[in-house]
C-alpha cells in the first residue's frame, strides 16, 4: 500500500511536467492548427531563463580580504555578489537562494516575447501549408534554438538548486498512519505539482471566465465566423501562442531543480509530450492534462520493482505502448473532439 502511494506521488511531478507541456502544445494546435515541434525548445528556453537569473543574481565583484594573504603572498580576494552589497548580506543571500522562483517573474515576459516573435515571424506563414511542412519548419527551428542555447551555455547540464527551504523531503507516510520513512517525498516536487496545478487552473479560468477567453474558444470552434463578426481573431491567437509559450517556459523554470537543464532536454520532453497530446486527443485541453498525469503516474508505477520483474523493461516503453494501444482503439484519443486532424 505504501509503495503504491509513493509511486503515485512520484508520478505526479513527471505528470505535471507532461501536462503543462502538452497543455501548451494543445493550445497552439487548437487555436492555430499548427503542429509545433519547437515546443520542447520553449520548455528548454524556460529552463535556461532560470539559469540566466541565477547567473545574473550571482554576479559578483572581487574584494581584497584585509590582512590575509595566500601562500604566494598575494592579497586574498573574495567574491561578493552585487545583490549582497546592495541589500545587505542576509537578504542578498536569500535572493540568490530563491533564484529559481524569482526566475518565474523573468521568464513570463521573456517567454511571451519569444512566443510573439515566433508566431509573427515564422509560424503565421505556415497556417495554410500542410502539417508536414509545419512539423519540418518547427523541427528546424527547434534545432536552431537548441544550438543557440548550446553556444551560450555550453553542452553540460547546469545545476540550479531549489531554495534551501525546499531542499528536504516530506515524510508523507506519517500523516497517513504509516511508519516513518516509508513514504518520503521531496518538497520541491510537491511545490512543482501545486505550481502546475495552479497554472493549469489559471489557463482554464482564463479561457472560461474572461471575454478574451470566450472569443478564443469561439475562434477554436469556428475561426471564420468569428472573423466575419468583425473580431480580429488572428491577434488573439497570437496572444494565445505567447501564453502557450509562457506555460511551457514556466514548466521549464520550475523543473530545473528536479533535473539540471541541458540543451537537449527539450527534445527529450518533446517526443513524450506529443505522445501525451495524441493520447489525450488532439485539440482537447482537458484531454492533454488528463493524459499528462495519467501517463506520468503509469510510468512511475511501471518502474516498481515487482512489475519490472514480471515484465522487464516495461518502465522504458509503457508510455509508447499505451499510446499505440489508444491510437489503435480510440483514434481520437481519450477526450478528442470529432473532426480534428482526421483528414
Amino acid at each position, binding site marked *: 500500500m505504501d509503495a503504491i502511494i509513493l509511486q503515485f506521488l512520484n508520478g505526479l511531478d513527471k505528470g505535471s511536467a507532461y501536462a503543462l507541456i502538452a497543455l501548451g502544445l494543445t493550445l497552439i494546435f487548437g487555436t492555430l492548427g499548427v503542429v509545433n515541434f519547437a515546443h520542447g525548445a520553449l520548455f528548454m528556453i524556460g529552463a535556461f531563463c532560470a539559469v540566466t537569473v541565477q547567473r545574473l543574481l550571482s554576479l559578483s565583484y572581487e574584494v581584497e580580504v584585509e590582512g590575509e594573504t595566500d601562500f604566494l603572498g598575494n592579497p586574498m580576494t573574495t567574491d561578493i555578489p552585487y545583490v549582497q552589497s546592495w541589500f545587505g548580506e542576509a537578504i542578498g543571500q536569500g535572493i540568490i537562494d530563491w533564484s529559481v522562483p524569482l526566475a518565474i517573474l523573468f521568464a513570463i515576459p521573456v517567454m511571451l516575447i519569444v512566443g510573439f516573435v515566433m508566431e509573427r515571424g515564422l509560424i503565421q506563414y505556415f497556417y495554410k501549408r500542410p502539417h508536414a511542412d509545419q512539423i519540418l519548419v518547427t523541427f528546424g527551428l527547434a*534545432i*536552431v534554438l537548441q*544550438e543557440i542555447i548550446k553556444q551560450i551555455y555550453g553542452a553540460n547540464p547546469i545545476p540550479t538548486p531549489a531554495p534551501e527551504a525546499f531542499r528536504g523531503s516530506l515524510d508523507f507516510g506519517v500523516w497517513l498512519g504509516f511508519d516513518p520513512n516509508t513514504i518520503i517525498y521531496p518538497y520541491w516536487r510537491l511545490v512543482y505539482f501545486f505550481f502546475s496545478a495552479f497554472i493549469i487552473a489559471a489557463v482554464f479560468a482564463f479561457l472560461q471566465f474572461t471575454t478574451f477567453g470566450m472569443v478564443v474558444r469561439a475562434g477554436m470552434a469556428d475561426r471564420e465566423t468569428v472573423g466575419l463578426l468583425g473580431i480580429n481573431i488572428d491577434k488573439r491567437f497570437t496572444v494565445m501562442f505567447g501564453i502557450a509559450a509562457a506555460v511551457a517556459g514556466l514548466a521549464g523554470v520550475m523543473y530545473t531543480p528536479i533535473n539540471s537543464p541541458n540543451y537537449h532536454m527539450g527534445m527529450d520532453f518533446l517526443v513524450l509530450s506529443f505522445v501525451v497530446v*495524441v493520447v489525450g486527443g488532439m485539440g482537447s485541453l482537458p484531454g492533454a492534462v488528463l493524459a499528462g498525469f495519467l501517463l506520468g503516474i503509469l510510468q512511475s508505477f511501471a518502474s516498481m520493482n515487482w512489475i519490472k520483474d514480471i515484465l*522487464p523493461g516495461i518502465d522504458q516503453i509503457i508510455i509508447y505502448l499505451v*499510446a499505440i494501444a489508444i*491510437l489503435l482503439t480510440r483514434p481520437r484519443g481519450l477526450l478528442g473532439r470529432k473532426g480534428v486532424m482526421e483528414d
Partner: protein
Amino acid sequence: MLGLNRKDLTLMMIVAAMTLLAPIILNPFPSDSAMAQFNAGYPDLMQRFVIFGIFAIGFNILFGLTGYLSFGHAAFLGVGSYSAVWMFKLLSMNVIPAIVLAVIISGLFALVIGYISLRRSGIYFSILTLAFAQMSFNLAYSVLTPITNGETGLQLALDDPRVLDGGSSGGSLPVTQLFGLEMRATTQLEIGAWSFDFNVGYYLCAAIMLAVFYLAIRIFRSPFGIMLRAVKSNQQRMNYTGLNSRPYTLAAFVISGMYAGLAGGLMASMDPLAGAERMQWTASGEVVLMTILGGAGTLIGPVLGAGFIKYFENIFSKINDNVLHSWFAVMPDGIEDFLVTIVHPFVGKGWHLTLGLMFMAVVIFLPGGLVEGGQRIGRFVTGRRNKKAGGAEAEAARKQPAE
C-alpha cells in the same frame, strides 16, 4: 535500355558516372594546398555519402510517393546494423550474409511496425512510428542488452565463434571482407600534387547504391508507384473507387524499411560496430532532413540531400578559428577578428546551427528542396522558352487533382 526512358537513363548514367568517379571528383584540390580541407574524397566520408544516400532513397519511396511522414525510420537502420554485426560475430566476416540478413530482418521489422502504424494516417502515423522507434531505442539500451550490448554498442570480439571462418584468427580482430577482398583496402593514386583514394568498401557501397537507385527509378515509374502517388494526392477517392490502398502503402513501408536496413548493414560492414544511438529519433529526423533538403518525391533529391548534409557536416565541423583566421588574413586586423567572431558560431561544433538554419530556409522558400532550386536556376538561365516545356511537367506534378 534497361527498361528506362531516355530521361531516366540519362539521370541513371550521370549518377553512375558521378559515384564511380567520386574519388576523383570530390578531390578537386591538391592535397597539400590550403583548399585541401574542402576535399571530400576520402573513403570514410564517401562511404557515408552513399550509405546515407541509400537510406534517403528508401525513405523517399515512402514519404515522397505516399506522403506518409515516418519519424521512426532510424529504427530499421539500427536493426540492420545489429543483425549485420551479429552475422560477423557468428557466421563469417564476409559481408554478403551480413547484408542479406540485415535486409531481411529489417524488412520483417518494418512489416510488423508498418502493419500496425498504417492503420492511421497524417500526424497519427508519424507519432505511431515515432513511438515504435523510441520503444526500440529504449529497449536496445536497457532490457535487450544481451543482444545489443547496451550503451557500449555491439562490437566484434576475439572469442566470437565465426563458424565459417573457423574461429579466431590470431591475436587481432578480423576485418570485414568480400570473398577475401578487405573492405578497408585502399589504393592510392598520385597524379602530380593530387592524390586519390580508391577504396574497396566504397565501391561495394557505390555498386549497391546504383542497384537500389535503379530499383527506385523502376518503382517510381511502375504502376505500383503511380498507385502510391494516388495515395498521396487523394486517398479517400481511391478508397471510394473500391481500391484498398493499405497493401500498397504497407509494401512501400516495407521496401523503405529494407532500404534502411540495407544502409544499416552496409554501415556495419564498413565499420563492424552497432550502437543504439543510431535508432534515436533525432537520427530519424536526420533522414527526414536529407530527403526534404534534396527534394522529396524526386529521384535524385534524396541522394543530393544526403551528400549535401554529410559533406557540410564533415567540412563545416572541421573549420576552427585558426582556419578562419587564415582565410581572413588579408583583411586588416580589426575586421579580421570581427569576421572570425561572426562566422565562429556557425562552424566547427556549431555546425548544427547552420544545418538548422539551412533546413528552415529550404522548407520556407524552397518546398521542393535543392532539386526545385536547381530547376529554378535552370529556368532562369535558359530563359522563358524552356519554362513552358520543362516547367509544365513539374507544375502538373505539383497540381492537386481538381476536387
